[in-house]
């Protein structure tokens, strides 16, 4: 390290003078030395723009500005945007009102970039905003709301909605946790640490598969002043295994003897901050012996292939099956009226790429350990970490930070065991922030898929008769959520249609790839690609309109699903498809006219339009998944909502509060949130499977109503009495009670009147043929994509997306639109650009996710077909939104060009090759 030199510069108008290591990044100086953690770090490589600050007025990536250059510089950060009194600027207010911040991790970078633009162009057009924001990635929003917020920043910002009692559900209220996100004061995993925290870094396998041996680690530690410890498997006091499905836990905290994938942890160094930062991890005494890896599931299935895990013969982790009717009979029916189409598809690893890398710290508090980190599943983290440390679950406290995007990847443990072990063993707090490459290499991915299917329908009446599906999923080196994918896919591979004869088989196969886990949709986006594109081919073969064909076959209440489940209500797929009809007709006409013009003018450009449908079960597949909510009143007249559902940007903090406020009958403004904390908030389950609005929301209804009943009883008021809070005075109709007088009755949570309720959606197990009631409710949806294809270059431009979703009840339309736009952008990425190749694309310039200019206008059409179980009829939306996008885009590409490409992503070279293929086939 270079000796620190003093530099003097101004930050947000304030003169500062600090000693800096001259090659230290400005981000680190701001965050670590000046405590300005509003500037975020997503990559340290210029790729994400989250670190954008204004340097002498111009936006730059602070991660690439050496501190030695700062003398005399003028630096502006997000902390400088608010007024001196802390009031947010017009731009910040506009972000809040337009729902432009979801998780909020990209927000500071967006705000700073936009600030520079708005100084020169106070009322920019969309193209100018896209140009300006092109250097900042957002994984949550799909950018459209950000673009709107910037365009309108200098218009009068509309006032926030403040619904009266009973009016919260359905209102476009600001995200309740939104203000700190736009102020840059929200605390994410990397944003807080005790001053005396040691730093942890993890040594990972550079090989897909390798045996390894350590040299003298003690001598290494002794030779490096400031280094406290090198941790390995030998230091794990409890079970050196973890996994989200306890019975299948197979992933070691530190590999023992053999690493099974590139990126697997083998050791961790713990020590003083500077010593660990400056340590060259490659100097650790480790010898590697690379072994032949299994990188392909077909190879892993081959006779005689080595086993990734002894005890999992054939490298099979899990299988799934749903069978109904006689699919072989139906598909081999010689009746000429039956038309069959068949096809295959494939997808690769897809990386979640949350802009926040995994990060957090742990501290030992007596005989307990506290872990403060970003996560989607606090209680699961608690139990798994306890087992690793050999402690009771109660001895572990998980305090989730704000989460800068998750999408499924933060369901699995990441930094938790390393910081916990380091803190437990050294007795000092310990922190760890994954680098981008580490985050990409080490954490879970979307399952690569190889799918095949045949589907048949009758020419005479256009009815589907059968679908036979089989899918092989590369589940990577460890189990993670592989079985969940294997189970979910066969239930969903029919799409939201009536299919009398059905068989769907799935297989999750181990390889030496990164562990495949949960990613928005658990395998269903992959299967929808094949199933929905085949439906288009089938409609064409039958000579039927592609949308009408889907409407004709759409599931309905009273008709059995492929698992034999019959819903009496809440089946909204038909309405979703019908909501696209007008656009379908318009777009078809526009496309035909545009293509005729292009053809006449000899332009190598074609337009196309495609639709795809989707269904998705809310909650765990045929497994209990309860949520508990506690709500109560404090003696000082606040409603306190103990809401343990981690808000990863999707909005559960806001939605659950809206629901609870209405159930209770008090205005939303009275409600104060108590965030997730395993010591304080009851278990609201994991944030996955689109379950938080549906399951936790329902628990919030029950808890809100129970509290209301308790109040009415206590005040002896009639059941229809309206509640009001007036300072500490609680009124119910004519009756009133000063809560201050109850101060002595406060419970352990400080609540004087409280209720706690649990909801577990009713499901029934699937039998050996996959028949049963896997979910209490499904969400339904359909997307329409309009694309333009550059025929000569094979480049696809998505020009518009129209997304119809049956959400049962739109609790907060702004948040739902945000989910739709964000999910659609991930679907677009899946379709056109995202492909993770271990060892090759471990950064955000090799691995491409959509930028602002890649996202078209998104029109959201919300359908409200209420669900009996859901809170106020609401259903899940978080994953539903992603599923139909890719197949709609593929269908639009085929509509434009006539070629079918189902090997994703459809990169320009792949599409061009497909477009050439007919030319190159000899006549």
């Amino acid at each position, binding site marked *: 390290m*270079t000796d620190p030199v003093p530099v003097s510069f101004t930050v947000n108008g304030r003169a500062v003078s600090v000693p800096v290591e001259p090659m230290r990044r400005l981000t680190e100086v701001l965050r670590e030395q000046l405590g300005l953690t509003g500037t975020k770090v997503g990559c340290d490589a210029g790729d994400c723009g989250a670190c954008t600050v204004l340097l002498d007025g111009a936006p730059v990536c602070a991660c*690439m500005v050496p501190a030695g250059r700062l003398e005399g510089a003028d630096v502006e950060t997000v902390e400088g945007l608010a007024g001196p009194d802390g009031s947010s600027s017009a731009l910040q207010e506009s972000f809040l009102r337009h729902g432009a911040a979801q998780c909020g991790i990209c927000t500071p970078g967006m705000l700073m970039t936009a600030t520079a633009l708005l100084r020169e162009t106070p009322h920019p057009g969309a193209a100018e905003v896209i140009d300006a924001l092109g*250097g900042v990635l957002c994984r949550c929003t799909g950018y459209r709301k950000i673009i709107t917020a910037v365009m309108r920043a200098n218009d009068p910002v509309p006032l926030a909605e403040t619904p009266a009692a009973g009016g919260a559900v359905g209102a476009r209220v600001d995200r309740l946790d939104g203000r700190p996100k736009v102020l840059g004061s929200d605390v994410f995993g990397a944003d807080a640490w005790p001053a005396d925290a040691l730093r942890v*870094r993890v040594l990972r396998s550079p090989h897909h598969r390798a045996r390894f041996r350590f040299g003298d680690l003690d001598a290494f530690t002794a030779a490096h002043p400031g280094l406290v410890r090198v941790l390995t498997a030998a230091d794990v006091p409890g079970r050196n295994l973890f996994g989200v499905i306890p019975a299948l836990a197979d992933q070691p905290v530190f590999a023992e003897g053999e690493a099974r994938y590139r990126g697997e942890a083998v050791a961790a160094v713990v020590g003083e901050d500077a010593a660990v930062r400056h340590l060259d991890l490659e100097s650790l005494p480790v010898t590697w012996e690379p072994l032949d890896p299994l990188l392909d599931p077909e190879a892993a299935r081959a006779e005689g292939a080595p086993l990734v895990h002894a005890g999992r013969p054939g490298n099979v982790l899990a299988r799934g099956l749903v069978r109904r009717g006689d699919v072989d009979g139906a598909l081999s029916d010689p009746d000429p009226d039956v038309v069959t189409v068949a096809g295959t598809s494939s997808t690769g690893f897809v990386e979640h790429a949350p802009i926040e890398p995994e990060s957090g710290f742990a501290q030992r508090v007596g005989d307990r350990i506290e872990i403060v980190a970003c996560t989607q599943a606090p209680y699961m983290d608690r139990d798994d970490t306890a087992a690793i440390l050999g402690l009771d679950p109660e001895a572990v406290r998980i305090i989730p930070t704000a989460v800068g995007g998750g999408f499924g990847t933060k369901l699995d443990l990441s930094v938790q065991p390393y910081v916990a072990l380091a803190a437990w063993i050294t007795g000092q707090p310990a922190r760890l922030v994954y680098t981008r490459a580490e985050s990409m290499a080490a954490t879970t991915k979307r399952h690569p898929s190889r799918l095949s299917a045949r589907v048949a329908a009758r020419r005479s009446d256009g009815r589907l008769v059968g679908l036979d599906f089989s899918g092989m999923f590369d589940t990577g080196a460890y189990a993670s959520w592989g079985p969940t994918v294997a189970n979910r896919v066969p239930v969903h591979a029919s799409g939201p249609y009536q299919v009398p004869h059905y068989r769907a088989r799935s297989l999750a196969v181990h390889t030496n790839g990164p562990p495949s886990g949960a990613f928005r949709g658990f395998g269903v986006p992959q299967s929808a690609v094949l199933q929905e594109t085949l439906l288009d081919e089938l409609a064409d073969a039958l000579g039927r309109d592609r949308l009408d064909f889907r409407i004709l076959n759409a599931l309905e209440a009273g008709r059995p699903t492929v698992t034999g489940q019959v819903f009496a209500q809440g089946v909204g797929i038909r309405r979703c498809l019908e909501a696209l009809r007008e656009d379908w007709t318009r777009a078809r006409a526009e496309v035909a006219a545009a293509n005729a013009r292009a053809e006449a003018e000899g332009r190598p450009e074609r337009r196309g339009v495609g639709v795809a449908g989707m269904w998705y079960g809310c909650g765990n597949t045929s497994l209990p998944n309860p949520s508990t909510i506690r709500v109560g009143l404090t003696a000082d007249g606040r409603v306190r909502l103990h809401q343990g559902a981690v808000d990863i940007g999707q909005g559960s903090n806001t939605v659950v509060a809206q629901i609870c406020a209405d159930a209770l009958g008090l205005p939303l403004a009275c409600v104060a949130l108590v965030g997730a904390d395993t010591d304080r908030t009851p278990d609201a389950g994991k944030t996955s499977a689109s379950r938080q609005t549906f399951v936790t929301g329902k628990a919030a209804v029950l808890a809100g109503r129970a509290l209301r009943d308790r109040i009415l009883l206590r005040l002896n008021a009639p059941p229809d009495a309206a509640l009001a809070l007036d300072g500490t005075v609680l009124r119910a109709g004519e009756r009133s009670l000063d809560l201050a007088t109850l101060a002595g009755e406060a419970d352990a949570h400080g609540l004087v009147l409280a209720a706690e309720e649990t909801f577990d959606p009713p499901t029934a197990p699937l039998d050996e043929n996959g028949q049963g009631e896997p979910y209490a409710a499904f969400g339904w949806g359909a997307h329409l994509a309009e694309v333009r294809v550059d025929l000569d270059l094979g480049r696809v431009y998505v020009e518009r997306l129209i997304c119809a979703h049956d959400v049962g009840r739109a609790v907060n339309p702004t948040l739902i639109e945000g989910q739709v736009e964000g999910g659609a952008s991930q679907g677009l990425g899946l379709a056109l650009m995202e492909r993770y190749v271990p060892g090759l694309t471990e950064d955000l310039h090799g691995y*491409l996710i959509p930028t602002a200019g890649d996202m078209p206008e998104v029109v959201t059409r919300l359908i409200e077909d209420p669900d009996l179980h859901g809170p106020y009829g609401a259903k899940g939306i978080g994953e539903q939104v992603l599923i139909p996008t890719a197949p709609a885009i593929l269908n639009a590409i085929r509509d434009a060009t006539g070629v079918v490409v189902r090997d994703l992503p459809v990169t320009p070279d792949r599409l061009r090759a497909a477009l050439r293929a007919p030319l190159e086939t000899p006549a």
Partner: protein
Amino acid sequence: MPRYVRARTLDEALDRLAAGRWRVIAGGTDVFPALADGQPGREDMLDITGLAALRGIRFDESARAWRLGALATWTDVRTAADLPPWFRALKLAAREVGGVQIQNAGTVAGNLCNASPAADGVPPLLALDARVEIAGPGGVRVEPLAAFITGVRRTTLAPDEMVTAILVPDPGRPGASDFLKLGTRHSLVISIAMVAVVLWRDEAGAIAAAGVSVGSCAPVAVRLGALEARLVGQPPGTDLAALVHESDGDALSPIDDVRASAAYRREAALTLVRRSLARCGEAAA
């Protein structure tokens, strides 16, 4: 322990370079991402951003060339008001380098010195016959860009030399230029292929000289000499795209990588050349 020095004068910088091994750092947008992930830097760093003399873009009468100081950023190129219209290719490239953040920090000279096959600055400057001004212990030398970059991340720069400017000659005749970049997404994208076309006209409007170059399809961006020769003499109104032959692609040696296949690159590059010629032809006709 690696050192860091922020030079105050060119002489100081050159003295340092003469005295030891330094990594020059300008905008840092290639230097920082190249630091091994999460690992400490191991090279001594010579920061040249304090050398005011290397800033800016101006016309150098004696050299009859536009002089882009080594610290001229992509934003400087993009926003320079007084550049002649035939700078369009470089201006278009400047708009497509990274995002605003990268354009504000990254220098054109850094782009050339970094010598990536995918450097967007190289094809336009190659087609414009740019030269590189290099200072070292022995004084200043000027070298054609075509000779300066010798391979993937290799240039003729000696360890004790640094680039002080890029010189773009003004041939004193009307010209037009164009740049097209192909990537898999809208912004922040490493080019699959990119092309630059420069056409100079004589008094009659015929093409007097032409520059056509292709990047990301060979270790170093390539000029399509045979095509350039075919273009010369073409009168206004010619369908220039039709002059491109399939065999013009033989000058390229693309590779397969995660971004695209080699075969695709070759074909796409020629498609871009045709389009760029058409655009350029229209602009200058």
